[in-house]
């Protein structure tokens, strides 16, 4: 009985192994492909599938150009580009943070693109001064508060949240998230390192609880009364209020008349080794145009980078605001300094 069992199992394993060998052989063969058809663009995207695929599909419908893409963390995609070098199949790198694009450009992985359309559509502070990458949507990071427990007259700036009156009332997301690293980096650009470190130390001293892993948890904590104010990206707030109109938290535009609200971008650049730079540039130009812009931003309740594009009604309802005009490239350049500063200040 036992012997029969073993034989069955051995036969089974042998069969599976044979099939596996056939599969691997087939895949290895499919690894050799003919030079890519001219009508296909390849995108490495840190912006996730459900936020980009609808836009890519629209481009294919309009122009017939196919868009093949893979998603992943920007830092990983950048290492991939670097490792692949001139053999990389990628034409476009897309990220959800300016720092990553800055880093990719610094490492020579993106190429300058001269396009009057992009220069016209995208404001100067939302694109690389060297034209290697362009913002496609704008993400504002501002103050969220409990209207029941906070008088808006007391609110003003990010720096103000370091004041003694917020002791035990402030919630922050972890400093591991790039959005906070960018916020502090642009603060360094505006105030200098010393002053910024004082602000961050003040924040840490005011924390009501340990930092949060994401903005949604932070907003829920304000709603539950664990803290009264916090700093969040507006689209996280938008996602919640879309389902719960009575959510007891409101947004306050930070630093109005004092440098403007911190903005980051979701953006893209043409890769250094793309074999179809012209087609890739046309794709970016299309993405910067009105209809694509409205769509690109609205799927995630972000702000279009192109000021002429229409804004999602819910996003519009938060009112106009003055964004910081510091070039988002500064967020990348100063990011390592910001991370070190936050480590020194004990902001985890």
């Amino acid at each position, binding site marked *: 009985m036992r012997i029969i069992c073993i034989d069955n199992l*051995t036969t089974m394993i042998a069969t599976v192994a044979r099939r596996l060998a056939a599969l691997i052989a087939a895949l290895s063969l499919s690894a050799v492909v003919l030079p890519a058809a001219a009508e296909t663009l390849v995108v490495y995207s840190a912006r996730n599938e459900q936020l980009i695929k609808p836009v890519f599909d629209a481009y294919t419908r309009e122009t017939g150009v196919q868009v093949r893409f893979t998603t992943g963390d920007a830092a990983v995609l950048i290492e991939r580009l670097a490792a692949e070098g001139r053999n990389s199949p990628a034409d476009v790198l897309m990220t959800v943070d300016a720092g990553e694009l800055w880093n990719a450009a610094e490492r020579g992985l993106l190429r300058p693109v001269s396009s009057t359309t992009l220069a016209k559509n995208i404001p100067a502070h939302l694109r690389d001064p060297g034209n290697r990458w362009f913002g496609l949507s704008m993400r504002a990071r501002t103050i969220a508060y409990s209207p029941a427990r906070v008088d808006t007259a007391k609110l003003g700036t990010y720096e103000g949240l370091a004041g003694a009156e917020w002791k035990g009332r402030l919630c922050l997301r972890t400093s591991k998230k790039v959005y906070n690293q960018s916020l502090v980096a642009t603060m360094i650009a505006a105030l200098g390192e010393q002053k910024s470190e004082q602000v961050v130390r003040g924040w840490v001293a005011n924390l009501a609880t340990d930092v949060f892993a994401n903005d949604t948890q932070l907003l829920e904590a304000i709603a539950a009364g664990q803290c009264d104010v916090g700093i969040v990206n507006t689209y996280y707030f938008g996602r919640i209020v879309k389902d719960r109109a009575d959510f007891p938290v409101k947004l306050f535009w930070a630093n109005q008349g004092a440098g403007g609200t911190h903005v980051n971008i979701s953006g893209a650049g043409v890769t250094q080794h793309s074999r179809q730079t012209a087609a890739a540039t046309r794709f970016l130009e299309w993405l910067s145009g009105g209809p694509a812009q409205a769509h690109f931003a609205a799927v995630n309740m972000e702000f279009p980078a192109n000021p002429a594009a229409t804004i999602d009604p819910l996003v519009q309802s938060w009112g106009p605001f003055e964004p910081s005009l510091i070039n988002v490239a500064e967020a990348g350049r100063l990011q390592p300094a910001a991370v070190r500063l936050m480590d020194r200040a004990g902001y985890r």
Partner: protein
Amino acid sequence: MSFVPRRAAAVLVVGLLAAPALLPLLTAVLAWATPASEVWQHQLQYVLPRVAWNTTLLLLIVGSATALLGTGLAWLVAGHDFPGRSVFTWALLLPLAVPGYVLAVVFAGALDYAGPLQSWLRATTHAPLRLPPIRSLGGAALVLTLCLYPYVYMLARVAFESAGARALEAAQSLGLDRRAAFRKVLLPLARPAVAAGVGLVCMETLSDFGVVAALNVDTFTTAIYRAWFGMFSISAALQMAALLGLLALSGVWLERRLRGGRGFAAQRPSGDLPRQRLGGARGLAATLAATLVLLLAFLLPMAQLLAWSITHAATDLDARYWAFAARSVAIAASGALVVVAAALVLGYALRGESRPWVRGLGRFATVGYAIPGTVLAVGLFAPVAALDGWLQSALEGLFGAASPQLFLQGTLLTMFIAYLARFLAVGTGPVESGLDRIHHNLDEAAANLGVRGVARLRRVHFPLLRGSLLAAAVLVFVDLMKELPITLMTRPFGFETLAVRVFEMAAEGEWQRAALPSVLIVAAGVLPVVLLARRVTHVA
């Protein structure tokens, strides 16, 4: 076959199997050639002391908690009869199917200040009642223990069941009572299995990023990502990963030293372990204890995930999910087969191998499990892409502009090599502890009867190893179902699995939408776990 080529063959086999794990380590070690001194100075002053302490503490707590819980439950189930035992036998393995990062998010959502439990407590008691914070080292230790204890449980149970009856009989015939027999005979007999399980748990804890990130604990892993993602220093990240690999290697070495030299051997599979009937209150207590573990680690989290899934299923669940699930299962099954086969080959190559450097090389092959998946993927990707580039240049030299384009790095082949680098340890643990239990006397006896080579493997070793092999296959299978960073980086275009789906949703913090693919990962993982777990019971 002469003696010398055989020794050379062993070196070749071990070297080949160690190569996938060695390549990223080599990339990491080479990173030391470009010193990131500014980053390191900062790390040493502000980061490393804290993360070293946290990592050590987490390892100690999770290691000892899983050892106790896993061995305890294994002995309870293997050696006792109580209401529900036959269900718990396999059900206690179910937490294996739940990805750690998913469990962490569920715990954070349910137990935090703003979560339903604490909100309800505040509303009903009106007292400033607070639970200990879940976003803490203690919380991370709890979650890691709950999702990792099955490694120890499974291996210990197989050990008890495959060797227990005879040993227990012998011990009792020498006048030991059941409890003393467990302590003095069965536990030492199961020690290689328990050590192998705890070893896996420790390596997984070292490399974990998902759980500690969700619950806000700064460990070695988060420091690696901070240097890389935050300070743009991939070299500092790789250097730290090399240290992590070194740490894991010394851990593996220590485990071998502690285990080594003792002849654990079951001469042949013994009959069923006689189980002690627990009646009345003791039986109830046993049932309650097992139920509690299952509730916390599996049932309640699954209920929460299901509740989240249902709210989004209407919009998100579409026909593509069949393909996602099919791909996940296909990848996990074939990956498990490859890894277990490799582990078996490695186990035999090292069996009776006396040269320390060859044994050392064999240890290297398993270190990949302790390195964060993303770092491992990048470390492996660079040499593969370089090879690809070299081949491409050669092709273009041959064919000129008309040469076909190679994308070695975008194929499943790279993915499988990376899986091997990362998960060989998971296969090796059970296989080696199984091989350890086969005494060399048995080989000699077989040789005297003229049974050698493949015949010996098939007729003598295989019946003894079957339980261990299946255990290894189950562990690798569920690990691969949950695996994310390697799949994400090395997958071909458009190759989406359930885990990739979780990433897509979670990347922008949409955890509730990530619940649907998470539930499907568990669902797809549960059936094989149950089937194989039952098989392990029957054949062991």
